[in-house]
Protein backbone atom coordinates (compact mmCIF):
# COMPACT_ATOMS: atom_id res chain seq x y z
CA UNK A 1 0.00 0.00 0.00
CA UNK A 2 1.11 3.54 -0.75
CA UNK A 3 -0.69 6.57 0.65
CA UNK A 4 -0.24 10.15 -0.55
CA UNK A 5 -1.16 13.10 1.65
CA UNK A 6 -0.57 16.70 0.54
CA UNK A 7 2.29 15.59 -1.71
CA UNK A 8 3.98 18.15 -3.92
CA UNK A 9 7.26 18.22 -5.82
CA UNK A 10 8.95 21.49 -6.68
CA UNK A 11 11.34 22.00 -9.58
CA UNK A 12 13.09 25.34 -10.22
CA UNK A 13 10.35 26.46 -12.63
CA UNK A 14 7.53 24.08 -11.78
CA UNK A 15 5.50 22.88 -8.83
CA UNK A 16 3.48 19.67 -9.14
CA UNK A 17 0.80 18.83 -6.60
CA UNK A 18 -0.82 15.43 -6.21
CA UNK A 19 -4.33 14.64 -4.99
CA UNK A 20 -4.46 12.59 -1.80
CA UNK A 21 -4.99 8.92 -2.49
CA UNK A 22 -4.19 5.39 -1.48
CA UNK A 23 -2.74 2.86 -3.91
CA UNK A 24 -4.10 -0.49 -2.69
CA UNK A 25 -2.13 -3.67 -2.12
CA UNK A 26 -2.47 -6.58 -4.55
CA UNK A 27 -3.68 -4.32 -7.33
CA UNK A 28 -2.36 -2.42 -10.33
CA UNK A 29 -3.09 1.31 -10.36
CA UNK A 30 -2.61 3.09 -13.66
CA UNK A 31 -1.32 6.66 -13.41
CA UNK A 32 -2.69 8.81 -16.20
CA UNK A 33 -2.00 12.38 -17.25
CA UNK A 34 -0.67 14.52 -20.08
CA UNK A 35 3.02 14.66 -21.02
CA UNK A 36 4.87 16.65 -18.39
CA UNK A 37 2.04 16.37 -15.87
CA UNK A 38 4.34 14.71 -13.33
CA UNK A 39 3.68 10.97 -13.66
CA UNK A 40 7.34 9.92 -13.64
CA UNK A 41 8.02 12.49 -10.93
CA UNK A 42 5.38 10.78 -8.78
CA UNK A 43 7.07 7.41 -9.27
CA UNK A 44 10.46 8.92 -8.39
CA UNK A 45 9.03 10.51 -5.26
CA UNK A 46 7.42 7.25 -4.15
CA UNK A 47 10.65 5.43 -5.00
CA UNK A 48 12.58 7.83 -2.78
CA UNK A 49 14.74 9.21 -5.58
CA UNK A 50 13.61 12.81 -5.29
CA UNK A 51 12.55 15.00 -2.43
CA UNK A 52 8.93 16.01 -1.88
CA UNK A 53 6.62 17.88 0.42
CA UNK A 54 3.79 16.16 2.26
CA UNK A 55 3.61 12.56 3.29
CA UNK A 56 4.17 9.37 1.31
CA UNK A 57 3.39 6.38 3.51
CA UNK A 58 4.67 3.06 2.18
CA UNK A 59 4.17 -0.46 3.39
CA UNK A 60 7.48 -2.08 2.56
CA UNK A 61 10.22 -1.51 0.00
CA UNK A 62 9.48 0.27 -3.27
CA UNK A 63 11.50 -0.34 -6.41
CA UNK A 64 11.22 1.77 -9.54
CA UNK A 65 11.68 0.38 -13.01
CA UNK A 66 12.77 3.17 -15.36
CA UNK A 67 11.47 3.86 -18.84
CA UNK A 68 15.01 3.78 -20.21
CA UNK A 69 16.73 1.31 -17.90
CA UNK A 70 20.41 0.48 -17.67
CA UNK A 71 21.69 -3.06 -17.68
CA UNK A 72 24.99 -3.88 -16.03
CA UNK A 73 28.01 -5.17 -17.94
CA UNK A 74 27.47 -8.82 -17.00
CA UNK A 75 25.26 -11.72 -18.05
CA UNK A 76 21.47 -11.46 -18.06
CA UNK A 77 21.37 -13.95 -15.18
CA UNK A 78 23.86 -11.93 -13.15
CA UNK A 79 21.85 -8.79 -13.82
CA UNK A 80 18.69 -10.46 -12.58
CA UNK A 81 20.27 -11.79 -9.39
CA UNK A 82 21.91 -8.46 -8.48
CA UNK A 83 19.15 -7.38 -6.04
CA UNK A 84 19.31 -10.82 -4.42
CA UNK A 85 23.08 -10.64 -4.03
CA UNK A 86 23.05 -7.21 -2.42
CA UNK A 87 20.49 -8.51 0.07
CA UNK A 88 22.71 -11.46 0.87
CA UNK A 89 20.07 -13.95 -0.25
CA UNK A 90 20.87 -17.43 -1.50
CA UNK A 91 20.66 -17.05 -5.27
CA UNK A 92 20.22 -20.81 -5.83
CA UNK A 93 16.93 -20.69 -3.94
CA UNK A 94 15.60 -18.33 -6.61
CA UNK A 95 16.87 -20.29 -9.59
CA UNK A 96 13.50 -21.85 -10.37
CA UNK A 97 11.72 -18.48 -10.20
CA UNK A 98 14.34 -16.84 -12.41
CA UNK A 99 13.94 -19.52 -15.07
CA UNK A 100 10.16 -19.37 -14.81
CA UNK A 101 10.09 -15.59 -15.30
CA UNK A 102 12.75 -15.75 -18.01
CA UNK A 103 10.75 -18.40 -19.85
CA UNK A 104 7.62 -16.28 -19.52
CA UNK A 105 9.44 -13.31 -21.07
CA UNK A 106 11.20 -15.43 -23.76
CA UNK A 107 14.56 -14.60 -22.24
CA UNK A 108 15.62 -18.03 -21.03
CA UNK A 109 17.97 -18.67 -23.94
CA UNK A 110 19.70 -15.36 -23.32
CA UNK A 111 20.36 -15.86 -19.61
CA UNK A 112 24.08 -16.40 -20.04
CA UNK A 113 24.70 -13.73 -22.66
CA UNK A 114 26.10 -10.32 -21.77
CA UNK A 115 23.14 -8.02 -21.22
CA UNK A 116 24.95 -5.09 -22.83
CA UNK A 117 25.01 -6.95 -26.14
CA UNK A 118 21.27 -7.57 -26.33
CA UNK A 119 18.59 -5.67 -28.24
CA UNK A 120 16.79 -2.75 -26.55
CA UNK A 121 13.71 -4.92 -25.96
CA UNK A 122 15.74 -7.73 -24.41
CA UNK A 123 17.53 -5.22 -22.18
CA UNK A 124 14.11 -3.97 -21.10
CA UNK A 125 13.04 -7.50 -20.22
CA UNK A 126 16.30 -8.11 -18.33
CA UNK A 127 15.85 -5.01 -16.20
CA UNK A 128 12.16 -5.81 -15.63
CA UNK A 129 13.07 -9.26 -14.30
CA UNK A 130 15.82 -7.68 -12.18
CA UNK A 131 13.20 -5.38 -10.63
CA UNK A 132 10.73 -8.14 -9.82
CA UNK A 133 12.88 -11.17 -8.95
CA UNK A 134 13.08 -10.26 -5.26
CA UNK A 135 9.34 -9.48 -5.21
CA UNK A 136 9.38 -5.97 -3.78
CA UNK A 137 6.39 -4.85 -1.74
CA UNK A 138 5.79 -1.95 -4.12
CA UNK A 139 6.62 -2.04 -7.83
CA UNK A 140 6.71 1.23 -9.76
CA UNK A 141 6.71 0.72 -13.52
CA UNK A 142 7.45 3.65 -15.81
CA UNK A 143 6.44 2.90 -19.41
CA UNK A 144 7.43 -0.79 -19.24
CA UNK A 145 6.19 -1.49 -22.78
CA UNK A 146 8.81 0.82 -24.33
CA UNK A 147 10.99 -1.12 -26.81
CA UNK A 148 8.79 -4.24 -26.50
CA UNK A 149 7.22 -5.90 -29.54
CA UNK A 150 3.58 -7.03 -29.56
CA UNK A 151 4.40 -10.58 -28.38
CA UNK A 152 6.59 -9.25 -25.58
CA UNK A 153 3.83 -6.89 -24.42
CA UNK A 154 1.54 -9.91 -24.17
CA UNK A 155 4.20 -11.67 -22.09
CA UNK A 156 4.51 -8.61 -19.87
CA UNK A 157 0.73 -8.60 -19.32
CA UNK A 158 1.00 -12.16 -18.03
CA UNK A 159 3.95 -11.27 -15.80
CA UNK A 160 2.20 -8.22 -14.30
CA UNK A 161 -0.99 -10.21 -13.74
CA UNK A 162 1.09 -12.92 -12.04
CA UNK A 163 2.78 -10.39 -9.77
CA UNK A 164 -0.16 -8.22 -8.87
CA UNK A 165 -1.43 -10.56 -6.16
CA UNK A 166 1.89 -10.23 -4.37
CA UNK A 167 2.53 -6.49 -4.33
CA UNK A 168 1.31 -2.95 -4.89
CA UNK A 169 1.92 -1.99 -8.51
CA UNK A 170 1.78 1.59 -9.75
CA UNK A 171 2.05 1.80 -13.50
CA UNK A 172 2.64 4.66 -15.92
CA UNK A 173 1.92 3.55 -19.47
CA UNK A 174 0.45 5.09 -22.61
CA UNK A 175 -0.59 1.74 -24.10
CA UNK A 176 -4.35 1.77 -23.54
CA UNK A 177 -4.85 -1.92 -24.36
CA UNK A 178 -2.10 -2.89 -21.92
CA UNK A 179 -3.59 -0.70 -19.20
CA UNK A 180 -7.02 -2.23 -19.70
CA UNK A 181 -5.59 -5.74 -19.50
CA UNK A 182 -3.69 -5.26 -16.24
CA UNK A 183 -5.18 -2.21 -14.48
CA UNK A 184 -7.47 -2.34 -11.46
CA UNK A 185 -7.77 1.37 -10.85
CA UNK A 186 -6.76 4.76 -12.22
CA UNK A 187 -5.07 7.76 -10.60
CA UNK A 188 -5.01 10.96 -12.62
CA UNK A 189 -2.19 13.48 -12.40
CA UNK A 190 -2.64 17.13 -13.39
CA UNK A 191 -5.68 19.17 -14.33
Amino acid at each position, binding site marked *: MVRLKNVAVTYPALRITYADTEFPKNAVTIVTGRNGAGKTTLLKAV*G*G*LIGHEGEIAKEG*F*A*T*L*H*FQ*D*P*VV*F*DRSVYQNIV*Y*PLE*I*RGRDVRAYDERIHEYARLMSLEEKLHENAKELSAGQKMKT*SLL*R*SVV*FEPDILLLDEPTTYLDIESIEELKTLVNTLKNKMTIILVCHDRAFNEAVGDGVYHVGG
Partner: protein
Amino acid sequence: MIWEGLKTAFELLVSFDWEIYQIILLSLAISLSATLAAGVPGVLFGILVSIGRFKGKRLVKLLLFTFMGVPPVVMGLVVLLLAVGPLRPFNLVFTRTAMFLAQFLLVLPIIAGSIVISSERTQVRILETATTLGARRRQKVTLLIKETKPFIFMSLILGFSRAIAEVGAVMLVGGNIKGETRVMTTFIAMNTSMGQFGTSIAMGGILLLLAFLIHLSLSPFRRDFYG
Protein backbone atom coordinates in the same frame (compact mmCIF):
# COMPACT_ATOMS: atom_id res chain seq x y z
CA MET B 1 62.76 14.02 -45.80
CA ILE B 2 60.18 11.74 -44.16
CA TRP B 3 61.85 8.69 -45.70
CA GLU B 4 65.16 10.00 -44.43
CA GLY B 5 63.60 10.40 -40.97
CA LEU B 6 62.25 6.86 -40.92
CA LYS B 7 65.66 5.54 -41.95
CA THR B 8 67.26 7.56 -39.13
CA ALA B 9 64.64 6.24 -36.69
CA PHE B 10 65.57 2.68 -37.58
CA GLU B 11 69.27 3.50 -37.27
CA LEU B 12 68.68 5.17 -33.88
CA LEU B 13 66.88 2.11 -32.55
CA VAL B 14 69.38 -0.46 -33.83
CA SER B 15 72.37 1.64 -32.83
CA PHE B 16 71.60 0.70 -29.21
CA ASP B 17 72.75 4.18 -28.23
CA TRP B 18 72.12 4.33 -24.47
CA GLU B 19 71.25 8.03 -24.65
CA ILE B 20 68.34 7.32 -27.00
CA TYR B 21 67.02 4.49 -24.86
CA GLN B 22 67.42 6.60 -21.72
CA ILE B 23 65.33 9.38 -23.35
CA ILE B 24 62.61 6.90 -24.33
CA LEU B 25 62.54 5.24 -20.91
CA LEU B 26 62.47 8.56 -19.06
CA SER B 27 59.57 9.79 -21.23
CA LEU B 28 57.60 6.65 -20.51
CA ALA B 29 58.42 6.64 -16.80
CA ILE B 30 57.43 10.26 -16.18
CA SER B 31 54.29 10.23 -18.30
CA LEU B 32 53.12 6.86 -17.01
CA SER B 33 53.74 7.67 -13.35
CA ALA B 34 52.12 11.12 -13.67
CA THR B 35 49.06 9.57 -15.34
CA LEU B 36 48.71 6.80 -12.76
CA ALA B 37 49.24 9.21 -9.87
CA ALA B 38 46.65 11.62 -11.29
CA GLY B 39 44.33 8.70 -12.05
CA VAL B 40 43.17 8.08 -8.49
CA PRO B 41 42.19 11.65 -7.53
CA GLY B 42 41.12 12.42 -11.10
CA VAL B 43 38.73 9.49 -11.37
CA LEU B 44 37.32 10.08 -7.87
CA PHE B 45 36.82 13.77 -8.54
CA GLY B 46 35.23 13.03 -11.92
CA ILE B 47 32.79 10.55 -10.34
CA LEU B 48 31.97 12.92 -7.47
CA VAL B 49 31.26 15.79 -9.88
CA SER B 50 29.15 13.48 -12.07
CA ILE B 51 26.90 12.07 -9.37
CA GLY B 52 27.02 14.92 -6.87
CA ARG B 53 24.11 17.28 -6.38
CA PHE B 54 25.58 20.44 -4.93
CA LYS B 55 25.44 24.18 -5.29
CA GLY B 56 27.98 25.50 -7.75
CA LYS B 57 28.19 22.23 -9.73
CA ARG B 58 27.90 24.16 -12.98
CA LEU B 59 30.82 26.41 -12.03
CA VAL B 60 32.93 23.42 -10.97
CA LYS B 61 32.27 21.78 -14.36
CA LEU B 62 33.06 24.98 -16.24
CA LEU B 63 36.37 25.33 -14.39
CA LEU B 64 37.19 21.67 -14.86
CA PHE B 65 36.56 21.82 -18.61
CA THR B 66 38.60 25.04 -18.82
CA PHE B 67 41.56 23.39 -17.09
CA MET B 68 41.36 20.48 -19.53
CA GLY B 69 42.61 22.92 -22.15
CA VAL B 70 45.41 24.59 -20.20
CA PRO B 71 48.43 24.98 -22.49
CA PRO B 72 51.27 22.80 -21.17
CA VAL B 73 53.65 25.74 -21.27
CA VAL B 74 51.36 27.65 -18.89
CA MET B 75 51.26 24.70 -16.52
CA GLY B 76 55.06 24.51 -16.78
CA LEU B 77 55.25 28.19 -15.89
CA VAL B 78 53.03 27.66 -12.83
CA VAL B 79 55.19 24.77 -11.61
CA LEU B 80 58.35 26.77 -12.31
CA LEU B 81 57.02 29.72 -10.31
CA LEU B 82 56.11 27.34 -7.48
CA ALA B 83 59.57 25.76 -7.68
CA VAL B 84 61.40 29.07 -7.39
CA GLY B 85 58.84 30.37 -4.88
CA PRO B 86 57.14 28.48 -2.07
CA LEU B 87 58.69 25.12 -3.03
CA ARG B 88 62.24 26.53 -3.29
CA PRO B 89 63.56 24.44 -0.33
CA PHE B 90 62.86 21.28 -2.33
CA ASN B 91 65.23 22.27 -5.18
CA LEU B 92 62.76 21.27 -7.88
CA VAL B 93 63.98 23.45 -10.75
CA PHE B 94 65.22 21.36 -13.72
CA THR B 95 64.48 18.06 -12.03
CA ARG B 96 62.48 15.00 -12.98
CA THR B 97 60.24 15.59 -9.95
CA ALA B 98 59.24 18.97 -11.38
CA MET B 99 58.49 17.32 -14.73
CA PHE B 100 56.35 14.72 -12.97
CA LEU B 101 54.54 17.45 -11.03
CA ALA B 102 53.82 19.49 -14.16
CA GLN B 103 52.45 16.48 -16.03
CA PHE B 104 50.46 15.39 -12.98
CA LEU B 105 48.73 18.78 -12.83
CA LEU B 106 48.23 18.84 -16.59
CA VAL B 107 46.66 15.39 -16.72
CA LEU B 108 44.49 15.63 -13.58
CA PRO B 109 41.70 17.80 -15.08
CA ILE B 110 41.80 15.80 -18.32
CA ILE B 111 41.09 12.56 -16.45
CA ALA B 112 38.41 14.09 -14.22
CA GLY B 113 36.82 16.11 -17.03
CA SER B 114 36.68 13.26 -19.51
CA ILE B 115 34.97 11.05 -16.90
CA VAL B 116 32.31 13.75 -16.47
CA ILE B 117 31.89 14.37 -20.20
CA SER B 118 31.70 10.72 -21.19
CA SER B 119 29.69 9.15 -18.40
CA GLU B 120 27.85 11.65 -16.21
CA ARG B 121 24.42 10.55 -17.42
CA THR B 122 25.35 6.86 -17.28
CA GLN B 123 26.70 7.20 -13.75
CA VAL B 124 23.56 8.94 -12.50
CA ARG B 125 21.38 6.23 -14.04
CA ILE B 126 23.51 3.44 -12.55
CA LEU B 127 23.31 5.09 -9.15
CA GLU B 128 19.53 5.56 -9.39
CA THR B 129 19.10 1.94 -10.51
CA ALA B 130 21.26 0.65 -7.65
CA THR B 131 19.33 2.83 -5.18
CA THR B 132 15.97 1.64 -6.36
CA LEU B 133 17.10 -1.99 -6.21
CA GLY B 134 18.06 -1.48 -2.57
CA ALA B 135 21.86 -1.21 -2.74
CA ARG B 136 23.70 0.24 0.25
CA ARG B 137 26.30 2.99 -0.05
CA ARG B 138 29.30 0.66 -0.41
CA GLN B 139 27.44 -1.57 -2.89
CA LYS B 140 26.57 1.49 -4.95
CA VAL B 141 30.20 2.66 -5.03
CA THR B 142 31.41 -0.83 -6.04
CA LEU B 143 28.81 -1.07 -8.80
CA LEU B 144 29.53 2.45 -10.01
CA ILE B 145 33.27 1.80 -10.33
CA LYS B 146 32.70 -1.56 -12.05
CA GLU B 147 30.24 -0.10 -14.56
CA THR B 148 32.35 3.00 -15.18
CA LYS B 149 35.50 0.97 -15.95
CA PRO B 150 35.47 1.59 -19.73
CA PHE B 151 35.18 5.34 -19.12
CA ILE B 152 37.93 5.26 -16.48
CA PHE B 153 40.15 3.41 -18.90
CA MET B 154 39.40 5.91 -21.67
CA SER B 155 40.20 8.85 -19.38
CA LEU B 156 43.55 7.31 -18.38
CA ILE B 157 44.42 6.73 -22.03
CA LEU B 158 43.55 10.35 -22.81
CA GLY B 159 45.65 11.54 -19.87
CA PHE B 160 48.64 9.46 -20.87
CA SER B 161 48.38 10.58 -24.49
CA ARG B 162 48.41 14.19 -23.37
CA ALA B 163 51.37 13.61 -21.02
CA ILE B 164 53.60 11.70 -23.43
CA ALA B 165 52.98 14.17 -26.26
CA GLU B 166 53.42 17.48 -24.46
CA VAL B 167 56.63 19.46 -24.67
CA GLY B 168 56.02 22.91 -23.18
CA ALA B 169 55.76 21.96 -19.52
CA VAL B 170 58.64 19.48 -19.40
CA MET B 171 60.87 21.86 -21.38
CA LEU B 172 60.25 24.71 -18.94
CA VAL B 173 60.57 22.82 -15.67
CA GLY B 174 62.99 20.11 -16.80
CA GLY B 175 65.33 22.22 -18.90
CA ASN B 176 66.10 19.43 -21.41
CA ILE B 177 69.34 18.49 -19.63
CA LYS B 178 71.14 15.66 -21.41
CA GLY B 179 71.07 12.45 -19.41
CA GLU B 180 68.90 14.04 -16.74
CA THR B 181 65.67 15.60 -17.92
CA ARG B 182 65.74 15.12 -21.69
CA VAL B 183 62.62 13.33 -22.94
CA MET B 184 61.43 12.48 -26.45
CA THR B 185 59.44 15.66 -27.05
CA THR B 186 62.19 18.00 -25.79
CA PHE B 187 64.69 16.02 -27.88
CA ILE B 188 62.50 16.61 -30.94
CA ALA B 189 62.10 20.33 -30.18
CA MET B 190 65.85 20.74 -29.67
CA ASN B 191 66.81 18.94 -32.88
CA THR B 192 64.21 20.86 -34.88
CA SER B 193 65.58 24.17 -33.61
CA MET B 194 69.05 23.00 -34.67
CA GLY B 195 67.79 22.17 -38.16
CA GLN B 196 68.27 18.41 -37.69
CA PHE B 197 64.87 17.55 -39.11
CA GLY B 198 65.73 13.94 -39.90
CA THR B 199 66.54 13.17 -36.26
CA SER B 200 63.37 14.99 -35.16
CA ILE B 201 61.22 12.98 -37.54
CA ALA B 202 62.97 9.83 -36.36
CA MET B 203 62.17 10.46 -32.70
CA GLY B 204 58.63 11.53 -33.66
CA GLY B 205 58.23 8.20 -35.44
CA ILE B 206 59.51 6.32 -32.38
CA LEU B 207 57.06 8.27 -30.19
CA LEU B 208 54.15 7.29 -32.43
CA LEU B 209 55.34 3.69 -32.59
CA LEU B 210 55.50 3.53 -28.80
CA ALA B 211 51.97 4.94 -28.47
CA PHE B 212 50.75 2.36 -30.98
CA LEU B 213 52.50 -0.49 -29.13
CA ILE B 214 50.98 0.62 -25.81
CA HIS B 215 47.48 0.58 -27.31
CA LEU B 216 48.21 -2.74 -29.02
CA SER B 217 49.30 -4.32 -25.74
CA LEU B 218 46.21 -3.01 -23.93
CA SER B 219 43.69 -3.93 -26.61
CA PRO B 220 43.18 -7.61 -25.62
CA PHE B 221 42.16 -6.50 -22.12
CA ARG B 222 39.57 -3.96 -23.18
CA ARG B 223 37.62 -5.25 -26.15
CA ASP B 224 34.72 -2.94 -25.21
CA PHE B 225 37.01 0.00 -25.91
CA TYR B 226 39.05 -1.18 -28.89
CA GLY B 227 36.41 -3.43 -30.44
